[in-house]
């Protein structure tokens, strides 16, 4: 079971689109997952429970788990690279 933290400005709109894309991706790849959708201010509070953070904005500063920029799901540019990046983190170890 993998936990993906999906964050955007308020944890409402943009992160919903990113989440639904990740759901599709992980289901297709038969990865068991759980998604925590939240606002950027809540990310640090959730990071202990997660495997990766996918956010709508570039995150700077210290995070305990890998952070990935999920913007391609919104802009449509570079989606394939983003998908394989996410999978590479989640397939690493069990």
């Amino acid at each position: 079971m993998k936990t993906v933290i999906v964050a955007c400005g308020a944890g409402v709109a943009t992160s919903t689109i990113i989440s639904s894309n990740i759901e599709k991706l992980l289901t297709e790849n038969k990865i068991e997952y759980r998604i925590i959708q939240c606002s950027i201010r809540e990310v640090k509070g959730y990071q202990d429970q997660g495997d990766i953070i996918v956010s709508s904005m570039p995150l700077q500063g210290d995070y305990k788990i890998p952070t990935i920029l999920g913007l391609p799901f919104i802009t449509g540019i570079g989606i394939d690279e983003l998908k394989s990046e996410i999978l590479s983190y989640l397939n690493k170890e069990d």
Partner: protein
Amino acid sequence: MGILKEIFNYISGLGSYVMIPLMITLVGLLVRLHPIKALKAGMTVGIGLISLNLVLGLIWTNISPVANLLVEKFGLKLTTIDTGWGAAAGLAFSTTVGSFIIPFILIVNILMLTLKLTNTVNIDIWNYWHYAFTGSVIYLLTHNIVYAFIGAAAHCIISLKIADYTAPKVQKELGIPGISIPQGFAVSTVPIFDLLDKFYDLFIPKSKKDNSDSKDKGKEIDSSKFGFLSVIAEPIFLGFIIGFLLALLVSYSIKDALNLGMEMAALMFLLPRATKILMEGLVPINEQARNYMQKKYNGQEFYIGLDSAVLLGVPTTVAVGLLLIPITLVLAMIIPTNTTLPVGDLASTAFFISMATVIHNRSFIKTLLSGTIMMSIVLCISSFFAPMITIFAKSGAAAMPEGALQVTALSAGNPIAFVFYQLNRLGIVGIALIIALTAGIVYFYSMKTKRETIKEDKGVVL
């Protein structure tokens, strides 16, 4: 014509819980959604609206008495609750103007692109609520749907122009090429921060100015210095603390204060979730629109317009955003024209200064000063709009008790909406002025963008 008007009157007479789903379904069909999907989208938006009103009920029943006591005891006229941008967005989308805003703004954007007046393809459809809001307050004032849509279009056009202008800076800041930020609030802050930046430079010695860029970045303040603030910045803690302290201030017992704290925490937790339902309803319409725009405009020469949230990871923005929480609360108490008790949008203070960080080259001091000034402006304007927003909220049929609080959102304290509203008091002259002003801004920023691009190009050659 008569029959059309009667149909329209009948539909709007059904109340927004029925009218809005109908309108959204219609818009869904317009963007060629499957009828069932369109209906589901419409109903989901309606359900979001109902949830929003249920949550707002918390304010009216539990928080109103406290605010009344604040007036009685301290003469603190904080009679308006800031519900946060989510409620404002939901309410803006649920007006007559709001239900048609998505296709309308798309058309305006396409026109601007076709006329080569902008490079920005604004796919950040949720933030069309800012344009819906501007249009809706104009409609409330003038009852003229044409004026309302002119206002919304003008706000959108100004946003696209300012987005083009700030695009190079934003791309450099984030290291993401091909994006711009036409978010309706963020753009309204750009001219203000630009002016303030020039003003600050008057006080900075020239020698220092030359390498202020690198120096400021070296001094960048990490938000971890405000560890305590970043804990209470989590919406539920923020809500609890404000509720608890307010209750103590008006001498509630500890038991009642704890309860009010929990109710405020619930408000902070539930409002975004209620909004999320409404936004979920808009997802299919959003996707259709985005796919269409992406297919149509996918060349190198276009900027993809995104929410200002993409800037919220910048450390200066995070740090100043946290400091603005206590600053905004203090401002709310000392600004005489303010009636707003900041709550909901305290969770998103960073949004208000996202562009300041970019314009001030990440300078902490400048961003903090600009942020304080901006929040003062925002408090005054959101207090001004409180009666209008309360009317939008009431039309959802939620029972509002007598003498209850007004509602507003700091994020609705938009300077552009404010200026347009004031101009509309002049009737047709005001509309002419809005059009002239917009044309002037289009010209001004076209020139400015051109000049900056030439400067950039020269920089590369050298």
